[in-house]
């Protein structure tokens, strides 16, 4: 399992593309939004939590199809499916690898971008905390979408259509944490709910994803 994790990480970094692309996209969103809505600090501070979460979510979406597509094409997915390690475990590890190259850098970069969007200072801690707690869910849910569309030629657009509705709860609770944090309110409830979603999804969804991959490999 660790070997698979290391292999995926190495591939993601070496192949370029996937690693930097999500971050660059996140940065672009944070730059483009003020250009679109105008530079008033008060407006930006108000919408910053939502924009940062939506940006992170879209950046995560960009690299989803790469989770399984390359392995499907060169046949290593078949090997993984027949390997002694359960496919559910392989899916979980691959989601973790995806998170490590997209969600984790996004989380670490988010305070810098929050600066651009004029997030109130008391929100920074909660922004990082909510992204750290929430982005794993994005990767795991995304892996499910990628597993559904892995056999398709032009799955990219369909993948977004399938995955985005599934992101709704994570987005709502994640952005709520930051919004409340920035306003200096109590954040316990949404933060716990966000953590609950991440844990439940990580525990259960790999089974559905593995089932979908088995169907696609049939």
């Amino acid at each position, binding site marked *: 399992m660790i070997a698979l994790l290391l292999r995926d990480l190495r591939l993601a970094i070496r192949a370029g593309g996937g690693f930097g692309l999500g971050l660059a996209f996140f940065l672009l969103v944070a730059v483009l939004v003020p250009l679109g809505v105008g530079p008033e600090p008060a407006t930006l501070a108000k919408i910053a939590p939502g924009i940062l979460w939506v940006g992170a979510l879209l950046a995560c979406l960009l690299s989803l199809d790469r989770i399984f597509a390359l392995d499907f094409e060169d046949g290593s997915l078949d090997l993984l499916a027949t390997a002694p390690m359960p496919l559910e475990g392989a899916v979980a590890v691959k989601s973790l690898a995806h998170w490590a190259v997209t969600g984790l850098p996004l989380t670490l970069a988010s305070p810098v971008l929050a600066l651009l969007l004029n997030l109130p200072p008391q929100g920074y801690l909660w922004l990082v905390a909510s992204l750290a707690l929430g982005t794993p869910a994005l990767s795991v849910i995304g892996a499910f979408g990628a597993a*559904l569309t892995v056999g398709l030629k032009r799955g990219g657009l*369909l993948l977004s*259509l399938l995955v985005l509705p*599934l992101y*709704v709860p994570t987005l*709502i*609770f994640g952005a709520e944490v930051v919004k409340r944090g920035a306003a200096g309110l109590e954040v316990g*409830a*949404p933060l716990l709910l966000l953590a609950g979603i991440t844990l439940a999804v990580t525990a259960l969804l790999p089974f559905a994803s593995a089932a979908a991959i088995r*169907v696609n490999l049939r």
Partner: protein
Amino acid sequence: MSIWEYANPKRFMTTSAAILPWVSALTVICLATGLIWGFFFTPDDYKQGSTVKIIYLHVPAALMAINAWMMMLVTSLIWLIRRHHVSALAAKAAAPIGLTFTLVALVTGAVWGQPMWGTWWAWDPRLTSFLILGLFYLGYIALWQAIDTPDTAADLTSVLCLVGSVFALLSRYAVNFWNQGLHQGASLSLDKEENVSDVFYFPLLICIAGFVALFLTLVLLRTRTEIRARRVQALLARDRMA
């Protein structure tokens, strides 16, 4: 070709052919009675004026939009567990109906909300979760369209339906948390106090019956079409083999 390919669909075809005229007649009778009664012979509400008449379309459509997803959930489960092809095809047949009902509910709601709430759309929990339900229908239909192999498509859409159900429910509670709404509570519940008054209640019940019958009719009709389409595919494949 195994016996299951034919035996079960065949029985479904004969049974549904016998039922179909009756449910279609029931649909027409109920919808005509309910809508005409509701539209022409119910009084205006003292607060909402004549817009109260929209309830006869809005509530049944919304109700059936959710029930259609429930039915897809059940048929998907049957397909995954028992592998009855008709079940998978019935789920496929129901999705566009559910989507249409969702659209009807959203459109009638918007048209009603404009004079009553002063806005076509509000990010109210009920409205938002209906929009999300519509997105789930879209994704489900798109996944069916995208996959060529019928059994693979049935499997994957069933898995999506199961996972989607959980997330749809989760979204429902998430949006509740996120915004307190404008939308009124249940118009029909066992708690008599909350209900709409009797003048509106009976035509509404008939309309709901009509929408249920309409849903049944359309599901039967569309499932028959899907079964025939599947048979066409099988025959063409056999032609190519020969």
